[in-house]
């Protein structure tokens, strides 16, 4: 009599059932994939809505795929960085230029201020030498001899004021030749 073991581990499952199970498993995995993609797509849509004005200004259109969109944004960012560097260089050049121009204006303003603070009867500039490094001015100050001793002149910061010579002019006037220097 043949022996039949009902608890045998060698029991088999038809290939057809295996196929059904595999299809089912793959379908679940694909559904998961679709859900993941949808979730990220929806996040990208949110980003597109929130940052819409910025994208519009920069003429960027997103495709809803993070990898590709990140590359698009990165490329645009690099373009802007180049533009930023270019602008920074231009502004630096402009600033450097304006600093030189300000230095030029400051020298003449300081000269005017120095002359204005003097109480001399007459102030006569006889020589001006100006360049960006070193500048100097020679001028005469004429004081009335009857008046008290001329007060000291206020010298702006960064300048050196020296008296080149002094003389009395027919007991009426006192004359000074001054030199105002700036720079080293």
């Amino acid at each position: 009599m043949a022996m039949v073991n009902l608890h045998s581990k060698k029991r088999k499952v038809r290939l057809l059932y295996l196929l059904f199970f595999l299809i089912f498993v793959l379908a679940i995995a694909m559904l998961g994939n679709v859900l993941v993609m949808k979730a990220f797509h929806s996040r990208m849509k949110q980003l597109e809505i929130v940052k819409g004005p910025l994208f519009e200004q920069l003429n960027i259109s997103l495709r809803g795929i993070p990898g590709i969109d990140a590359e698009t944004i990165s490329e645009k960012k690099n373009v802007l960085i180049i533009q930023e560097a270019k602008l920074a260089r231009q502004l630096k050049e402009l600033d450097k230029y304006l600093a030189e121009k300000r230095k030029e204006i400051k020298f003449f303003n300081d000269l005017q201020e120095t002359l204005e603070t003097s109480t001399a009867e007459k102030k006569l500039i006889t020589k001006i030498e100006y360049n960006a490094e070193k500048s100097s001015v020679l001028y005469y100050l004429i004081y009335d001899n009857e008046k008290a001793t001329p007060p000291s002149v206020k010298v702006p910061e960064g300048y050196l004021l020296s008296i080149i010579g002094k003389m009395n002019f027919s007991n009426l006037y006192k004359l000074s030749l001054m030199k105002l220097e700036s720079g080293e």
Partner: protein
Amino acid sequence: MDEENKTGMEDFFERLESESLRKGEASNEKGSAAYIAHGYEKKLARKQSFLTKKGVPRNLFWGIVIGTFIISFLLLVGWPLYKNFSDLSYLLKELEDLEKTYYSVNVMARSKDAVIGTLKEKAADMDFLVKTLGIEDNPGSYDEIKLKGSPEKTREILEGLLNNPKILIKDLQLRSNLGFPVVPKTDLPANIVLELSLDIELTNLF
């Protein structure tokens, strides 16, 4: 009695055999026979395919199913999830940088435009200087410009040079022909002539 029973049994088996042969379900083996219940007849008559005939051991079956489940989830869910997360975090970082750079560029462009606009406005009137100094209204260096004139005219030129942001004085020398100063109360006309020597540069920045 035994003989009768034996003959009866043989008759019975012969009848069964001839009936099964008639239905075309005779076995290949000579002399063997199959007995089928009526309810199972249709099921056996169905055509068997490879997929229904063959089978895999149950353990292997579950192994294949679970393995496929893990691999397909890793490939179709896990990997896209990881890839999209890393791409999205990279995108957010790049977006933040883009926004910062965009606003920075905007601020810089605006300030540059404002400064250049003001400077252009101030440098608009070049005619007087171009005519007096004998230069062209083009960017570049103009050296050794020499002028002689009255103090009023020289003052006007100097004011023009200082107030025009387009012109930068590289070198300036101003001398008077005054041998000695004229005292304040003298009535003698002061015939003062000023000599102006200039090296200037017209900028190309605006």
